[in-house]
């Protein structure tokens, strides 16, 4: 092992990530697949919101996601701002087998854009890609929409098969640090907190 390989600049980002979307779109399943690698056919519906953390490493950067998995039922809508406020990233999930779910996703996009955090990384995830025959929302349509709305990420995922689930979270992690460094979050309650210890690593690279 050469010495130069372990002196890389390290930093850690803490990022609040919120999942939004219609009920039954698969938000909790996506999180469960990502965090635990599990899938339950009959995932019970979320009440209020659920919290999980997951740390990922992208290149030399560590991102600790603090994931808020919100309830999709309309009655919990009033909670949503609590969770997307100050978030660094949001995943808007829709069920590609449901037009209603797709419409709801679009309204979430609007809501997020209205609340005006320009730094928010918005990812659009068309879930349940494992059964494409039942598809009601075409990939092209969603892609075009994501592009038009300048969403950072669009992926079709399957919490059931695991397809693109990690990609989704890692893409977000990839988009985060740059943005976090570029502008400090407004309002003092930014979703991204660079680790105070970053860069204080006493061990510096010493090559002869």
């Amino acid at each position: 092992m050469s010495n130069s390989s372990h002196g890389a600049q390290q930093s850690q980002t803490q990022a609040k990530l919120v999942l939004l979307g219609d009920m039954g779109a698969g938000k909790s399943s996506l999180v469960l697949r990502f965090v635990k690698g599990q899938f339950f056919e009959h995932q019970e519906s979320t009440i209020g919101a659920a919290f999980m953390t997951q740390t990922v490493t992208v290149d030399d950067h560590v991102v600790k996601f603090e994931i808020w998995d919100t309830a999709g039922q309309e009655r919990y809508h009033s909670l949503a701002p609590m969770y997307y406020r100050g978030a660094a990233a949001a995943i808007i999930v829709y069920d590609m087998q449901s037009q209603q779910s797709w419409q709801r996703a679009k309204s979430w996009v609007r809501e997020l854009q209205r609340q005006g955090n320009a730094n928010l990384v918005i990812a659009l995830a068309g879930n349940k890609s494992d059964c494409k025959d039942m598809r009601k929302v075409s990939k092209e349509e969603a892609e075009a929409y994501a592009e038009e709305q300048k969403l950072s990420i669009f992926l079709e995922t399957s919490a059931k098969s695991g397809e693109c689930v990690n990609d989704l979270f890692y893409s977000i992690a990839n988009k985060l640090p740059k943005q976090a460094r570029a502008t400090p979050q407004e309002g003092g309650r930014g979703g991204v907190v660079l680790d105070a210890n970053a860069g204080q690593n006493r061990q510096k690279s010493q090559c002869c």
Partner: protein
Amino acid sequence: MNSSSKSSSLRKVEFPSSSSRGGGAFASSSSPQNSCSSWETFDDDDVHCNDENDDDDARARRSVRRRPSLADAQPSNRDRTTEENNNAEKSASARNHHPISEDVAFARMNKPNDVRLRNLFFQRDVSVYSSVAETARIRANTFNANGKKPNEKLDIRDWLMNDDGDDDAVVDVYAVGFQEIVPLQVQKVLKVQDVERDARMWDEKILRCLNSVSARNGVGGGYVKITSVQLVGVYLTIFVREELIRKGSIRERPIATKVATGFSLGFGTGSMNVKLGNKGGCCALIKIRDTTIAFVCAHLAAGSKEEDAKRRNADAAEILQKCVFAPDEDEQGEDERDFRSSNSIRWEKPSRTRTIHDATVSIFFGDLNYRLNAPKDDVLEHVRLKSNEAELNASSFRASASNYIPLLKHDQLLNEMQSGNVLPGYREGSIEFPMTYKFKPGTSRYSGIGRAATSSSKDNINNNESDYENDFNDEFDDGESNSTKADDKEEKKKRAPAWCDRVLWKGDDLHLLGYRDHDEIYHSDHKPVSATFELKCRTVDYNGRLERMLTDLQRKLDAEETNRAHATKVVLESGTMCDFGEVHYCERVTRRIQFKFPRNNHGNAVSFTLGFHGRGGSYDDLVNDTEDDAPKWVRDITPAKATVSAETSVFVDISAFVGGAGTIRSVGASNSLDAVLVIRAEHCQDAYIALTGVYAQNPIFGAPLRSLPPSVFPPDVPSVISTLIDSLFAFGSISKNDLFTQKSSEKERMNAVNNCLRLCGVSQSAFNDMHSSSSSSLLDDFTALSVMSSSKPSSSVVELALALLEFFHALPEPLFGDGSLFTGCFRDEEYMDEAARKQRLENVLRQSLEKTAYASATYTLAFLTNYVGRNSPSSSTRLESVCRAFANAWFSKADASTFSLVRRQEIVKCLLSSSGNTAATTHHQQLNDLFSTTNSTTTTNSNPTNSAAGAAKVTRSLLDL
């Protein structure tokens, strides 16, 4: 003895705890700090680790899936605590297993400060993230030279190279440790040059021997010295096969250091520099591939008394603790630099200061000086009995292992190690050679056994170096009588033979091949000892397996954190919903929710708060926004915060109440009452209760003015206003001074609203029924009903007045809005008399308000003017109360208004004295006249129906006009 039999006969029996661990590790289980060690053997560690992962996952899965019931919350937490403690202990003991130092590992992990990750990392086995790239043969040789220089005759070849093994595999690393390389006399010790000269003599001799043999055997390249370190008499020098450097197996510059123990020269000044260094250790760290090997050559405290063993323990601990390998230490001697420059090889500089704990494996050897815990005379007698009487030498004694094996049970080192008092984690091969000390120099006879003072003591060799023969060493340490050169005395000291010279090791990657003494060396009063090892040299799979392992560990930690956040869950005994059903205007609906907190390990008392905020970023951050997010229609939460006992049901009453324009607005067009109540308690997951209900829209209160059915007369005035005002007249409001002064309670408001509805001929439920059918028909019905009221208002005039105020309060848009329409009236107010301002205000009203609003305003104003009266004694108090009440009812609430309350009151007052709508005024006058006569004949509260009917009659008659 062949090597395989030796290595397989490691001393398992004496350390029963090690058997469970396999691999013959007797190291740690008896020592307290190692009691939880989870070292695994290498043969099947992949399996082990996978198992462990599975267990972790399974545990995480269990605790998440099985929404923790009350019963198991507590024990599971307690388990976790002890588990964490264990982990900490494990990590302390498991470090030596890792071929990469922790800093390197964590540099790779990008997370240098996470202690939990670090601890987890050190519980994992190296084989998870590294693989064996090559094996190296390592030979550790130790020799207490008794202060004698090497001479030509001394043949060290067997000692250096012969391990009795069948295979003649080439040794890659020779670590040669000396003790008493110089005689431990004060004057000698201080002559640094002499000391160094002697060390160099040994180096030359060794190198010559190694290279001559390797040349003869055709081993290419020969050996080079790569580092050495000397502490007075202790000398550690390390030779490696050039090939290892050339092919890049050894790339990093070795670091050497020394730790002095023993006497302090300044007698208690305490400074390290004046430690005499008559005892101590020399340490070196070399790295083959990613495996770091520490060599510690030690000379521990001497002395045959039982308590001296403790001093040796302390010495060993001190050496290990103080041995710090600083990378900045000057480059080593000339010889090795020459070798490298001639081969254009540069050492990589060690990246940081290391300690012995950074070593993957370590070999601790030297004259450890441990004796036998048995009476000296008994030991000597035993040796004498077992030896050939005539020879009295070790050769006959060593002929049968049964001669010395029984003595091993008295060996201090074995006993101390077994008790965990010294060198925790280290192991030793089984001793199959006789005691290595103390011999008569030049012989293989144990000192103190034969008849005193034989003349043979100085025979054979070393006569020319007699000045080195004093054993100052023991004089320093034992504090016995001053030295004498006489062998007589030496004989009389009668030291019991002991296994002073030992080789111990630590680390599962080392495999002992041979462990023996070399009785052919007559040079000293000690016999040399050697041990041969095979070392698995690992390379770390940084980007593959290490990274995967770290990702897995991180995942595990995240799961733990998630589980902790979810540790306790509120039990919602009344469910996750709280339904208020249909909520009517000004009608409070109260529901009771019930929940309890399971017991957790944070004590029995739980403090909770109920609100509409959850937690923010990370789970423990509360959202502390100042803005009140509680929906306006949620009236009371009692208690909103409290401290309760766990496992006790908590009852909380929550009310829904819709009253006034603000709440109606908050309900919104959907008329649905929706909010999520968050129950928050420390160490507890947030619980959410969905509050739900339907606001039963009111036909009058909260409806926009224009949507209300107009009265027949006066035109444009909504019938509800005219009805209320007519009724007020009818029921004798004029005689009541406190019509608008009373503060209304919620209940009074509700009654007022209901009475008003009844007066207007609608009940809320009737309205809702109608509403569901068709709105146009409703309006028709309503118009009819409002005029042809057949209900019996039991209301007092105060309630009617209240209803009037409530009506204005409930308007979606206040009658005068935020008041900005009047701004112009006050522009140059100084030059304006009251009449002029009145004129202006009236103009503004006429021009700015749409006609229904205008009609409503003027009609009400006319009534109020009438009520206040002109010159009656109560006029001023009435005026004041009316101004105050309507300044609030007609304008937006305080902070949304353009004007202060005082100014608003002024406006109302001004308007009151005006007589804008003459028709309305006339109408009121007539009404007043009519009812004042009626009232004079009837008591105030009598027969209101007649009065209402009378009012209706009057209204109709006026309409006819």
